């Protein structure tokens, strides 16, 4: 039963009445992560559907951020972090030897909890990624890419007349949208978001959620969130983590309205977390 619960529609076979079959963009099998001797993730099997928003929920310390950071190998820079198992994107294990980590991180972008624009101009913030990956052949190309990214992130109109202003001078919500634009500028396939709205006010949060809805389809989005209402609002699929394991995963609808596991039921009802 557990294996079935952890399989998404489309990864094995679409359940009756589900959305048209989607393919799995990211496939995690047998992922075990420990920091030193402390286990953080235990036997995690998870699929992430392409072109959809997947939410990772769970109480603090359950390993959802650790899992997220495994998807673009950001845990490589953490001392004493040991990762076992297979995480495959488009069928290819990203932890295989010989994988170009920098290229991977361009394909799998990340937006962090606290907005962290570089202390440079708005232009330099967004242009940095394309510059180092050689995505724009000329200044005109770079400008076009820059405008497209900002427009996609819903920020172009607000800042188009002050592109040389420092990125750190924007409001919190604008900074986070700038970080999203920065991530989009390198043309990723997946965007990872680690509690992107937890440092923002409700209006800015609403803007970001609209943005996520608009981006879904073109990008595969995985979002870690503490806010269950947000998970219910933005995501199509949800995975519930508890003490380093994936307890339950499936359609957001099912997880929130018809949870199969008792722990899931308790968490979404707000009894702990």
């Amino acid at each position: 039963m557990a294996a079935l619960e952890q399989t998404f529609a489309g990864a094995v076979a679409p359940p009756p009445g589900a959305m048209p079959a989607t393919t799995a963009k990211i496939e995690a099998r047998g992922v075990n992560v420990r920091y030193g001797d402390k286990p953080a993730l235990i036997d995690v099997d998870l699929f992430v559907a392409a072109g959809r928003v997947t939410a990772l929920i769970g109480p603090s310390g359950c390993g959802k951020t650790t899992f997220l950071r495994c998807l673009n190998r950001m845990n490589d820079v953490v001392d004493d972090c040991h990762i076992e198992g297979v995480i495959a994107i488009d069928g290819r294990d990203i932890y295989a030897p010989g994988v170009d980590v920098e290229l991977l991180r361009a394909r799998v972008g990340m937006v962090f909890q606290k907005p962290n624009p570089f202390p440079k101009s708005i232009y330099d913030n967004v242009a940095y990624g394309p510059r180092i990956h050689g995505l724009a052949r000329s200044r005109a190309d770079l400008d076009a890419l820059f405008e497209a990214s900002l427009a996609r992130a819903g920020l172009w109109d607000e800042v188009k007349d002050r592109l040389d202003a420092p990125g750190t001078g924007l409001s919190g919500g604008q900074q986070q949208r700038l970080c999203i634009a920065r991530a989009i500028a390198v043309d990723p396939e997946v965007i990872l978001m680690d509690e992107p709205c937890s440092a923002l006010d409700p209006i800015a949060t609403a803007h970001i959620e609209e943005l996520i809805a608009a981006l879904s389809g073109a990008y595969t989005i995985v979002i870690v969130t503490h806010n269950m209402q947000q998970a219910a609002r933005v995501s199509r699929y949800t995975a519930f983590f508890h003490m380093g394991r994936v307890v339950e995963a499936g359609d957001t609808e099912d997880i929130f309205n018809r949870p199969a596991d008792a722990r899931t039921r308790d968490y979404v009802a707000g009894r702990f977390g």
Partner: protein
Amino acid sequence: MTENTATENTGATRRLARRRAAERRFRLYGMAAVGAALALLALILGGIAADGVSAFRQAEVRLPVTFEAAAVDGGDYGVLIKRALKSLFPEVRGRKAKRALYALASQGAARELRRMLLADPDIEDTTREVWLPASDDVDMFVKGEASGRIKADQATWIAALADDGRIEQRFNARFFTAGDSREPELAGILGATVGSLLTLVITFAVAFPLGVGAAVYLEEFAPRNRLTDLIEVSINNLAAVPSIVFGLFGLAVFLNLGGLPRSAPLVGGLVLALMTLPTVVIAGRAALGAVPGSIREAALGLGASRARAVAHHVLPLAMPGVLTGAIIGMARALGETAPLLMIGMVAFVVDIPTGPGDAATALPVQIFLWADAPERAFVERAAAAILVLLAFLAAMNLAAVVLRRRWERRF
């Protein structure tokens, strides 16, 4: 009920008053400590200034010099000075008396006449009123330092010259334009200053790149293990090693083993670079560590390699802290004497050095040599040189503060 509150209130007021008094006392202790420190500082600086300020003025004597061609051809310009003095005091007879008279002018005065003639050949065979440096004994006498070296007859002549307006204390430009000399009235700090400057340039050129590189590697790339811990402890210890040990090292390795030129700013710079290196590394690591990790994560998340993230984002943000650390290290190096003594920059060097390979001396060493000299005038000049050195140090530290303020950025 009311009685209880009454006693409670007086108890509370008493405690409050005691607490206020204690706070006042604490503040007073602090202010007293600051006051004592400032008083000591004022005492030291005041003492040095009192000794040294007089060195910025130098007694000069105005003599009517006839640039006679015949005497000049012999190459001995001193004859002209003797004749000028004789013309002012024709009544002086006897070898001893005449020697005393001629001793009023500095031995370097003759050289000045030669310089004047070479610069302007037209003055040949004319008589001009020329200001020439007086000897250091006259200088000290005029400044009120009676040392017993001025005899009674000399004193009368000096008084006569003064009445005539022929002896004055004028600005001692020679102090800033001349190198060291055996005669105090001709000695200046230019040689030592240039030597110090060349030494500091070498020190910066060696210590800064090596120090920043080491700091970047240790802070950003090195794994945290026993070896890097050992390195960190060693660097911290090196920063506390007495500077003379670096001088001994320089003597043994650079001079004896390496055969580099003795007394040269090149070797002095290398020795001081070794001494400053730990400071630069420690300041560099602190500055790099102060850059928030979110910046690194943002860069890495975009697919920048570790090296790119550091070079494009972390290092530019850390640069203000690194540079201020380097400037403070340089200021310390400027004032170091012991290591330079060990590598031989203690020689009596007259010429102004033209390159890092020439023999030179440094400002603190020059002060050390002058303070040791028997002539009174040198003691005064040592104090003046200390004032100049302190001015340089203050300027460097001020620059460090100003630059840090200007470059400080909010993350």
